[in-house]
C-alpha cells in the first residue's frame, strides 16, 4: 500500500534520482573503459574529471544568442526529470500520491520537447538549431506510442494513480501480459532522454547538435539532465510494469531499488549496442505500425477489465 510522504520528501527525491543517475553514468563509463581494453579501476576517473572540468569551464558566448531561452531550455531538462520523479514510489512511500500520477509523468517528460527546442534555438548557431529541430521530429514519432503504453498500464489498473497501478500487479506483473507496452515504454524512455538509438539530436554528424554550443556549467546541467531523465524513466518502469516494491524477503524499498537498477542496467548496456537512428527512418514505422499496435495493446487490459 503506497502512502504519501511528508512535504520535505520533495527535496529528497532529486537526491535519490541523482544517485541512480550517477550509478548509470559510472556503469556507462565502466562499459566504455572495458570496451577500450583498459583496466576497470579507471572507470570512475572519466565522469569525475569531466564533471570537474565542466564546473570550472568558461561558458561559450555566441553572437546574438537568446540567453533567456537558452538557459531556460538547458535548465528545464533536469527539472523535467526531477518533476517527473515526484510520482514514482520508492517502496511504499511516494513524494506525491496525486490521483493523476501517470498523466503528470507524461506531462513532465513532454516538457523536454520545449526544453530541447529552446536549448537548440537559444544558441543562435546552425548546428544547435538543427539538433533542436531533430528532437521535435523524433518526439513526434515516439510520443504517441509512449502515451498509449502509459494508458495501457493505467487501464490495466483502472486508475491513473500510480499507487493503484502497483496494487493491481499483486498477482501478475503488467510487463508479462502487456509486453508490447513495456517495450514501447522503454523505447520512449530512450526517446525523451535522447540517449542510445534516439541520440539523433546530439549526433556526432552535427558536432553534438543540441550540445554543440553548450559549455561549462550549462553542459554539465544538460548532460546530467539526460541521465536524470533516463533514471526517472527507469524508476517509473518499476511501478508501471514491474510490480513496484513487491517481492519476498527484502523490504519494499530494497525491491524498488533492485528493480530500478536492473532496468537501468539493461538501458545502459543496450545504449552502447544500438546504433543511432535517423528520425525520418522510423517516423513512418512509429505512426503506421507502433500506434495501431499500442492501441491494440491498450485494448487488451480494457477487455480483461470488462470480462472480470
Amino acid at each position, binding site marked *: 500500500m503506497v502512502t504519501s510522504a511528508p512535504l520535505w520528501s520533495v527535496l529528497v527525491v532529486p537526491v535519490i534520482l541523482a544517485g541512480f543517475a550517477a550509478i548509470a553514468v559510472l556503469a556507462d563509463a565502466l562499459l566504455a573503459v572495458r570496451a577500450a581494453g583498459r583496466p576497470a579501476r579507471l572507470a570512475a576517473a572519466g565522469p569525475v574529471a569531466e564533471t570537474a572540468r565542466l564546473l570550472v569551464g568558461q561558458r561559450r558566448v555566441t553572437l*546574438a544568442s*537568446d540567453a*533567456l*531561452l537558452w538557459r*531556460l531550455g538547458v535548465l528545464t531538462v533536469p527539472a523535467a526529470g526531477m518533476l517527473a520523479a515526484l510520482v514514482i514510489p520508492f517502496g511504499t512511500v511516494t513524494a506525491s500520491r*496525486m*490521483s*493523476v500520477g501517470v*498523466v*503528470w509523468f*507524461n*506531462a513532465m517528460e*513532454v*516538457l523536454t*520537447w*520545449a526544453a530541447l*527546442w*529552446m536549448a537548440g*534555438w537559444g544558441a*543562435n548557431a546552425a548546428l544547435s538549431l538543427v539538433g533542436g*529541430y531533430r528532437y*521535435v521530429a523524433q*518526439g513526434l514519432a515516439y*510520443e504517441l506510442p509512449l502515451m498509449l503504453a502509459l494508458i495501457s498500464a493505467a487501464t490495466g489498473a483502472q486508475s*491513473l494513480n500510480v499507487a493503484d497501478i502497483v496494487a493491481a500487479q499483486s498477482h501478475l506483473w503488467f510487463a508479462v501480459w502487456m509486453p508490447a507496452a513495456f517495450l514501447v515504454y522503454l523505447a520512449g524512455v530512450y526517446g525523451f532522454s535522447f540517449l542510445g538509438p534516439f541520440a539523433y539530436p546530439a549526433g556526432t554528424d552535427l558536432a553534438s547538435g543540441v550540445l554543440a554550443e553548450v559549455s561549462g556549467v550549462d553542459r554539465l546541467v544538460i548532460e546530467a539532465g539526460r541521465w536524470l531523465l533516463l533514471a526517472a524513466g527507469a524508476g517509473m518502469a518499476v511501478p508501471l510494469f514491474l510490480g513496484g516494491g513487491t517481492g519476498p524477503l527484502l523490504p519494499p524499498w530494497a525491491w524498488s531499488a533492485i528493480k530500478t537498477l536492473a532496468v537501468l542496467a539493461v538501458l545502459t548496456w543496450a545504449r552502447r549496442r544500438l546504433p543511432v537512428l535517423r528520425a*525520418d*527512418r*522510423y*517516423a*513512418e*514505422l512509429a505512426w*503506421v*505500425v507502433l500506434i495501431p499496435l499500442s492501441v491494440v495493446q491498450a485494448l487488451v487490459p480494457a477487455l480483461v477489465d470488462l470480462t472480470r
Partner: protein
Amino acid sequence: MTTAVFWVLALLAAASGFMVFRFNSMARVTISLMVSFLASGGLLVLLGLGYLGVVVILMMVMEMVIMAVFMIAYMMNPAGLMPMAMFHNKRGSLAIAVVTFALLAAGIFLTPWPHRSGAPPRDATRQLGTALMGSQMLTMITLGFTLLATMVGAVVLATQRGRYDRFGDDLKRRPPSDPVRGGVGR
C-alpha cells in the same frame, strides 16, 4: 495559500498573454503563450480539475512547440533582431478589445449568479469519464469524428503531392515515389 497561488497564476497568465503581442522575437512569443497556458492548467488544478489541468499542460506544451516550428518558418523576423510592428488598425482593435472587456466585466459583476448546486465529486476524473462514456456519448462521438476530419483535412491541405504525383499517372507505380522514404517500405 491557495489564494496566493491563484493570484500568482492569474497574473502570470494575463501578463504572459499580453507579452505575446509585445515581444519582437517569435520564439519568445510562442514560449510566452506556453507559459500562459501552463498558468491556466495550474488554475484548473486549483479548481479541483486535476486531470483536465494536467492534460491542458501536456497538450499545450506539445502544441506550442509545434506552433514554434511554424512561427519560425512563416514569420519574417523570427529572432526579433530587428524591431518590427506588423499591425493593422491598432487603435480600432484596442478599442474593441477594451469595450469587450468592459462589457464582460459588467456582466460578471452585475449578473445574479445562482448558488452552487451540489457538491464536488470525490473523483472529478471518474465523473468526466463516466459522463463521456455514458450520457455524453454523442459529444464524444462528435469530437472523435471532428478530430478525424481535422487530421484528414490538414494533411490534404498541407501536402503538395497528390496521388498522381506519388503513384504515377495510371496510379500503378509501387513503391510510391516520395522525397523521403519511410521506414516501412510501402
